[in-house]
């Protein structure tokens, strides 16, 4: 019996020795390499796992959890841990974006005593951390608890990783093409940028790598067609974004041209003529905004009075330059005309005038290469021109006789005189007397002659007779004045003179206004 009891005890002892379980899952080491990274960079977490016990860890009996400091760095959530140690586990990602980043592994095989290996997991720095931030690693039995003699002191580790400011990640554009919005001729790239990130700025460049100041797009809100890349910049540049392609569509726009035409009426000295100025919109859209025309009149001419309405154009002048503006929109394909008045001077009579090109601007047009008009050369400037001469029978008198002399005021400029008074001065001559009869309409010189005395008013001066007329002398015509000359003194001589005061009747040539006729009384 004693032997039986001893044998049984020994059996129990033996059984106890044979079936005693001492599995001990352990995290024996954990670290990040490197333990400081910049945002956007990655670090590898290495966790040393082993079964330090002398018996196997049964399948599906332990769970290993890795929870990162998700506010600062995270795993991909997709790529499970790797490495010899990781191969003992089936891994499940239980993280919730923005609130956790956790991998859980349950052993998918029995893990023999002393077996194990490293578990590797990549993390990426997302946000700058104020210090070293811990990742919690824990392993613990979750089943077959009798198989374990688990030491709790080797079940946890908290390796730390610090996230420093680094190059930002490549920004992601909201779209990859951009076009202008008419009537703009540039595009705004900034609408493609992602939301701003604290501590970062965005820069657009024209290259996909190695951005420099020379590739920098200084005004991304107004860029021409091309390919552009966005970089996020902190202490360094991020990689380039995907390319953004800008296309510029041709917008409908006005295009103004200008022409000037021959003046109307043909230029006449001292009279106003008008140069028609036509602005035509040959573009594809109505003009918008103020249109300005600058036009020069020929040197020596003067500006006349601008028409009151002038089709809505308002002009100011300085010297020989007129600047005219109009706010009126000109439809595409339409035109608008206004007039520029000018007055040739007497000295320009007989010569043409040259109008230099006029220039149009404004109206919202984009094409400024066709804004200059033609020049024009006018016909010769005409002007009324009065020339006096005499109609007479002879140049000698017998004393105490009288003769009729006719002073012809001829218009030779082929322009009818205006209503400006024409003055003719006939000075007295010693030995002769001159008489003017305002009622005479015909006289006999050699034959019967028609005269226009009623058109003339005489003013007696101490030295002669001043005759004045406001009756127009027709183009190429004449006004005739008869004077009765009486010879009083033997041997007297006279230069009978008629002098037309310059500019009368609007005449323009004052240099042919005097005529003299030598007369004598027989001795």
């Amino acid at each position, binding site marked *: 019996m004693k032997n039986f009891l001893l044998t049984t005890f020994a059996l129990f002892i033996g059984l106890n020795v044979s079936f005693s379980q001492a599995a001990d899952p352990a995290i024996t080491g954990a670290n990040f390499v490197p333990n400081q990274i910049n945002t956007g960079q990655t670090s590898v977490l290495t966790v040393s796992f082993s079964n330090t016990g002398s018996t196997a860890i049964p399948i599906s009996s332990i769970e290993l959890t890795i929870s990162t400091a998700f506010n600062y760095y995270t795993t991909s959530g997709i790529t499970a841990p790797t490495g010899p140690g990781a191969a003992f586990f089936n891994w499940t990602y239980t993280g919730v974006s923005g609130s956790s980043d956790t991998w859980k592994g349950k052993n998918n095989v029995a893990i023999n005593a002393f077996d194990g290996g490293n578990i590797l997991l990549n993390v990426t720095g997302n946000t700058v951390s104020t210090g070293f931030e811990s990742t919690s690693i824990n392993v613990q039995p979750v089943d077959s608890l009798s198989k374990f003699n688990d030491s709790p002191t080797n079940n946890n580790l908290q390796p730390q990783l610090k996230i420093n400011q680094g190059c930002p990640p490549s920004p992601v554009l909201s779209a990859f093409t951009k076009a202008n919005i008419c009537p703009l001729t540039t595009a705004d790239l900034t609408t493609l940028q992602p939301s701003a990130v604290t501590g970062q700025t965005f820069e657009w460049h024209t290259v996909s790598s190695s951005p420099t100041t020379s590739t920098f797009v200084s005004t991304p809100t107004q860029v021409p067609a091309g390919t552009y890349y966005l970089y996020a910049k902190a202490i360094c540049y991020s990689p380039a974004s995907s390319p953004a392609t800008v296309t510029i569509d041709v917008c409908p726009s006005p295009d103004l041209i200008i022409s000037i035409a021959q003046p109307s009426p043909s230029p006449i000295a001292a009279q106003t003529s008008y140069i028609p100025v036509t602005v035509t919109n040959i573009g594809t859209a109505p003009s918008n905004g103020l249109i300005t025309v600058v036009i020069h009149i020929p040197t*020596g001419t003067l500006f006349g009075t601008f028409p009151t309405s002038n089709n809505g154009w308002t002009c100011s002048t300085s010297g020989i330059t007129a600047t005219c503006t109009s706010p009126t929109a000109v439809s595409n394909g339409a035109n608008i005309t206004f007039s520029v008045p000018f007055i040739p001077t007497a000295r320009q009579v007989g010569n043409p005038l040259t109008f230099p090109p006029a220039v149009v601007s404004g109206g919202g047009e984009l094409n400024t290469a066709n804004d200059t008009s033609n020049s024009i050369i006018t016909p010769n400037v005409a002007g009324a021109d009065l020339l006096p001469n005499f109609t007479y029978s002879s140049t000698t008198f017998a004393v105490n006789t009288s003769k009729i002399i006719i002073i012809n005021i001829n218009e030779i400029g082929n322009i009818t005189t205006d209503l400006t008074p024409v003055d003719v001065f006939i000075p007295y001559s*010693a030995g002769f007397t001159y008489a003017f009869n305002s009622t005479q309409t015909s006289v006999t010189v050699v034959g019967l002659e028609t005269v226009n005395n009623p058109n003339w008013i005489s003013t007696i001066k101490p030295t002669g007779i001043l005759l004045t007329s406001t009756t127009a002398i027709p183009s190429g015509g004449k006004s005739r004045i008869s004077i009765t000359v009486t010879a009083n003194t*033997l*041997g007297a001589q*006279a*230069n009978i003179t008629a002098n037309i005061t310059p500019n009368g009747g609007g005449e323009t040539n004052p240099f042919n206004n*005097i005529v003299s006729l*030598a007369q004598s009384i027989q001795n």
Partner: protein
Amino acid sequence: MKRFILTIFTFIMGLTIVVAQFADPAVTGALFSSNQINTGQTTVLTVSFVNTGSTTIPVNSVELTISTAYSYYTSNDNMAPTGAGAILFNWAHIGTSGSADVWRGTNKIDIEAFVGGDILLTVIGNNVSPSFETTNINIQPISNFNKFFDSPNNNSLQPQLKVNQGLIVCKTICLPYSTVKTKSKFK
């Protein structure tokens, strides 16, 4: 610069228009009150002077000259021309006795448009002339030429005077007139 030049040009053109001047000094008539006189007798030369132009003749800018046929009749070199026209001039007698008898007048005031008057000069017959002998009268601008548009056709006249043999005063014996030397009253 271009605008400056244009402005200057325009200004000059303006000046040209504004200051265009058309003074025309003229002698429009001339006569001797008697166109025949005897030696020793006098007659009055009347010259009609006027500015026929419409602008003023500036002072000291015209000269009127009267040159008699001094071989036959002369003026009194101490008696300058008179009359409404003469007072417009400062007169100088520049004739040399026996070789010239010339009065030259330079206008001493501005002469307005249409202003003038007769110029009177007395001459005396000295020697019998074979026919009517000419006195030359001329007027012309001598300065301020840009103030004139002078017609040359009314600047000169040549009135004529004939000097006949006058009454010979005999004290005892009368000689043929050709041997009598006439004595001028002005000498």
